[in-house]
């Protein structure tokens, strides 16, 4: 026990004296958040319109007319999920077409809009009204026009930083695991440092435990640092449970640290690690929804990326941090990561070599 502790302390000491590691693992993710935090991505280009069609068919024409309007991004869904998206800020306005929908009657349409974006909501309501007018006019020009009843909804008005920060945290867990471990071990191997250790009675597992413990500690520091900076400086809407977040992060760390050890096992030099590590991390970095939502990916790509470990981690971290999801609610992500950790651990055990 004492030895494990001493090894861990030494390992942490070495980590903290390594300027590059601090820059790459701690400061770079923070810098990215700061950078993106100051860039505004939320201009009006189009209006996110949620449509809940409860009319059972009579509203179909109206919906397709709305879809023809360029400035509207129409999302069809159930009342509950659309309103939830409105609260999150993913919709500017949600239109509910009631069962008694008739283009000529009042009160059969309700539009909910986000309080914090009145400008977009107003614009959206205007557009919807015009579509409705045209539709009514076509049918019976003489009839009185139906009009929209609008209701305000309290929103949390999530911004890009809320999407980005959990993603960047997840990404840096991946980078630390794969690059940190793989490069670190290959370098120890190459410089003969490990050989020197093996002529002592050291238990190799103690050494690995110390390495993992060091990185877990760095991870905890990093999560705290990023969330605190996010909340204080960028109005991060963090409503999650910190322990749940840590648990998710640890599970992700298990997956990516194991991958790092597996890579370290099959590589003899840094030159061999780099391409392999990039082949694994780059697609995930770009396609796992770290920087941009995966909704716009082509169907089959999206299906593939559904199963990426970083997708599970980023989605899970985001749900916990921003939606306040409980462990049960991130069940699918947890399960995905557990499966990946079994795969990655077996690979690490099979491929890791000291020599």
């Amino acid at each position: 026990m004492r030895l494990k502790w001493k090894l861990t302390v030494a390992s942490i000491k070495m980590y903290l004296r390594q300027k590059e590691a601090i820059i790459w693992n701690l400061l770079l993710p923070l810098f990215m958040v700061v950078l993106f935090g100051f860039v505004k991505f939320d201009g009006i280009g189009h209006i996110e319109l949620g449509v809940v069609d409860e009319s059972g068919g009579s509203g179909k024409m109206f919906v397709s007319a709305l879809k023809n309007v360029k400035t509207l991004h129409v999302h069809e869904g159930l009342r509950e999920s659309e309103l939830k998206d409105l609260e999150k800020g993913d919709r500017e306005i949600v239109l509910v077409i009631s069962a008694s929908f008739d283009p000529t009657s009042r009160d059969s349409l309700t539009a909910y809009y986000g309080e914090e974006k009145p400008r977009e909501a107003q614009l959206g309501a205007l557009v919807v009204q015009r579509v409705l007018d045209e539709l009514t006019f076509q049918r019976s020009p003489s009839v009185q026009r139906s009009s929209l009843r609008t209701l305000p909804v309290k929103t949390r008005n999530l911004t890009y930083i809320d999407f980005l920060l959990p993603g960047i945290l997840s990404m840096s867990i991946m980078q630390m695991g794969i690059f940190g471990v793989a490069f670190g071990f290959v370098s120890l191997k190459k410089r003969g440092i490990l050989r020197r250790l093996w002529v002592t009675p050291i238990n190799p597992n103690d050494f690995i435990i110390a390495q993992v413990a060091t990185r877990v500690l760095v991870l905890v520091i990093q999560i705290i640092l990023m969330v605190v900076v996010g909340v204080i400086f960028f109005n991060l809407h963090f409503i999650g449970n910190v322990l749940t977040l840590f648990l998710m992060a640890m599970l992700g760390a298990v997956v990516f640290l194991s991958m790092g050890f597996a890579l370290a096992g099959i590589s003899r030099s840094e030159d061999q690690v780099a391409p392999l590590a990039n082949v694994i991390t780059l697609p995930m970095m770009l396609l796992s929804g770290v920087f941009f939502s995966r909704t716009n990916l082509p169907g089959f790509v999206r299906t593939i990326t559904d199963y990426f470990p970083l997708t599970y981690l980023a989605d899970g971290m985001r749900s916990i941090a921003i939606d306040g999801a409980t462990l049960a609610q991130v069940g699918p992500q947890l399960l995905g990561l557990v499966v990946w950790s079994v795969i990655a651990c077996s690979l690490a055990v099979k491929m890791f070599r000291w020599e």
Partner: protein
Amino acid sequence: MMAEAILEVRSLTKRYGDLVAVNGVSFSVGRQEIFGILGPNGAGKTSTLEMIETLRPIDGGEVCLDGIDVTRQPQEVKRLIGVQLQSSSFFDKLNLGELLLLFGELYGRRVDPVNLLREVELEEKSKSYVGQLSGGQKQRFSIAAALVNEPLVIFLDEPTTGLDPQSRRHLWGVIRRIRSEGKTIVLTTHYMEEAEELCDRVAIMDEGKIVALAPPQELIRQLLAGGFKKDRVERLANLEDVFLSLTGHSLRED
């Protein structure tokens, strides 16, 4: 003639694929002896040492260190030996004192780093990092690290390669002093005058086999008895003597 053996090597064999790197090597080393293993590159010196040091699996034969079989009880053997490896290094982000403390912990010992560093005349350097040391200082530190567990036998693989004549002589002094404290030393070297100066006995290896094993003076006598004559007339001094008389014996590394 030889004191009680502390290291016994019998028919030691190492194969890498078709290549037999060490081919049935046998020798024993007595307590407090300085034993040299000589030979051209690729003769199997390092492989031999690494099998004894538990770093490489033994393909044939056996090695006993203080009566303990290396194959059967490698962990026990590791506790009894101190090793300086050829071209191995230490963590570069721990200073010398911290490194020695950590290596002590690996043996379950709480060592006094300053004492160990004094042993190799580096007591001023306890706050330095390995990267800041000169070649000779690195080798001396590496010997200090090999002493943390108060080993019975110390293995030094080419300890003086790449050092200037002053540093080399200085290291000889360190090695002799460690021997005088009751330890046994097994070393490899490419410098014949070093072997002649330092070693009680030497084994000369070639192509995986020991081709001669005796005290250096004995081997020289045998050669001369066979009618060997040098091409050039023996001189009373050589260039190294000139170099040292011009530049002195004091160390230049600090």
